[in-house]
């Protein structure tokens, strides 16, 4: 067993690694920017080339921050769902949030033709995608929360979430069937996920949602620990199950919903990072897991983004593919090496 001090040391090291990867992430890309130029841009002197300054401040910095927020947030919401539903397969999207977001975006993109050419192009600006996706998630969230109030059984909530997911996926299929190739391609590109092209306002909104979700999660850590013993034990220790469930679902929805709205449905991080962390720390104590999952999630997403932007080339690979390509082998390797799933 590790003591509080070792944990603190680990988290400090993880944080330093995160900072290092953050700097590397800013430096590499289609144009590589030397580290000392990045520092001088930060301290307000500005980079020696104006293009570097522009690339850094308006493209790479918001992208790197978005990556960290998205990675950490998704990983935390995955952890919350895995504990709440006592299911190692649960992730941030088990309750159908991403399907809701997909539906919103699908209606926007695939339905845009219905609004006619010129109006359609206005609708397809970046903000409208964010709003459509957020609205979709929000509707699913409301439905799930309504169900949470009515139903006692947590497992029933899980199944109902999956059903909401299937229904929205079905509607998306019908919409796709009636749309043309160009629209389909646009929709599929959205579903690949993208960290780039974030405005500073977007990053700010995402950051606010992230902080709210994070605070709710930290406040839930005591209930989450109680839930490790099962609902009956948790109740016998004075936990208000319904209220705790409500707050946990709300936190997940705010985190996963806002992230999906800005970067698209990135599924893998939320499922895998909690397992990675548990496998490494061999504990279920959420006071340890929460900070560890937050740091590792941010780190993994930042590394994936660094790889995805393919240093020295003009291409950027879809982030959704990279997270799985890098993350899955790590999870498999850990499981094979330890031969046992800690859950």
């Amino acid at each position, binding site marked *: 067993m590790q003591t509080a001090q070792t944990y603190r040391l680990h988290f400090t090291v993880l944080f330093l690694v995160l900072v290092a990867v953050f700097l590397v992430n800013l430096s590499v890309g289609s144009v590589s920017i030397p580290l000392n130029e990045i520092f001088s841009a930060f301290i307000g002197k500005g980079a020696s080339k104006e293009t570097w300054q522009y690339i850094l401040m308006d493209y790479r910095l918001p992208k790197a921050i978005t990556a960290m927020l998205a990675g950490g947030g998704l990983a935390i919401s995955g952890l919350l769902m895995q504990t709440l539903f006592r299911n190692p397969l649960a992730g941030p999207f088990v309750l159908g949030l991403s399907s809701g977001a997909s539906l919103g975006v699908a209606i926007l993109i695939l339905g845009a033709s219905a609004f006619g050419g010129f109006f359609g192009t206005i609708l397809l600006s970046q903000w409208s995608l964010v709003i459509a996706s957020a609205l979709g998630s929000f509707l699913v969230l409301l439905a799930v929360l309504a169900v949470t109030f009515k139903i006692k059984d947590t497992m029933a909530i899980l199944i109902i979430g999956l059903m909401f997911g299937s229904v929205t996926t079905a509607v998306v299929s019908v919409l796709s069937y009636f749309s043309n190739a160009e629209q389909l391609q646009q929709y599929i590109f959205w579903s690949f996920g993208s960290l780039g092209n974030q405005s500073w306002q977007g990053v700010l909104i995402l950051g606010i949602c992230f902080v709210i979700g994070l605070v709710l999660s930290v406040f839930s850590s005591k209930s989450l620990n109680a839930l490790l013993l099962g609902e009956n034990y948790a109740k016998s*220790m004075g936990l208000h199950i319904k209220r705790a469930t409500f707050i946990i679902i709300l936190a997940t929805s705010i985190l996963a919903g806002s992230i999906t709205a800005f970067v698209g449905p990135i599924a893998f991080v939320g499922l895998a990072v909690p397992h990675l962390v548990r496998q490494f720390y061999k*504990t279920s104590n959420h006071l340890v897991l929460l900070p560890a999952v937050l740091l590792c999630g941010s780190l993994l997403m930042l590394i994936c983004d660094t790889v995805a932007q393919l240093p020295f080339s003009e291409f950027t690979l879809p982030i959704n593919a990279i997270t799985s390509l890098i993350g899955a082998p790590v999870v498999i390797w850990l499981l094979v090496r330890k031969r046992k799933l800690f859950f």
Partner: protein
Amino acid sequence: MAPEEKNIILQTQNLAVGYANKKGNSVVAQEINFSIEKGELVGLVGANGIGKSTLLRTLTGMQTALNGEVFLNGKNLKEYSSFQLATQLSVVLTEAPSSKNLSVLEMISLGRQPYTNWIGSLTEEDKKAVNLALEATETTALAQRKCFELSDGQMQRVAIARALAQDTPIIILDEPTTHLDIYHRAYVLKLLKKLASETQKTIFFSTHEIDLAIQLTDKLLVMAKDETYFGEPCKLIEAGRFDTLFPKETIDFDGKIGRFVIKN
């Protein structure tokens, strides 16, 4: 009407337990009357399906009574909030904790939840209570082990330690001796006996070990098919209350030796 005697800590009046549904109530057991005093070890025996678990679930507030009242410390159970109840009554359930990835120490520390702050950090007082629980159940040596590494017997001791750490005047256990070998069955029951007499905790447990329960408990609640009987084990034997528990042609109670014998 609240009970008047001071020492009585848990009492029922015409309690009926079962499940409420739309078509009406399905009563599992009714007319249950007993009063348990402080520091008593009380067993609950009866055949499978007679309603032992349902009764325990009702007493612990996990389900509501169909009829009648339960009094805890002279106050009606209905008037307790789940938080207040958590400081009065702790449980050991038949279900295993859903995560066995906790260390024994972490698991037992969770018992302190009703007393810890919003994030659940342990004060010196909490740590003291956890250590006492470890000592009382002789699990101190296991403290750093993970729950999945424990044997059934060790796990049961840890579960009891968690309830002890919750530091409540009443502990209710649902079949604490299932899945244990005969040594551990005796060990667990003797441990409960010791806890009841040394710490003045009231301990109420259901069991199928009628023989052991007769030897160890202060009082027994016998749930037979139509009636429940409550009293000291020897008086229950005299009154022949165990005779009707099971079908006579298979197994019969021998009052002289205080145990069941198989009929040929």
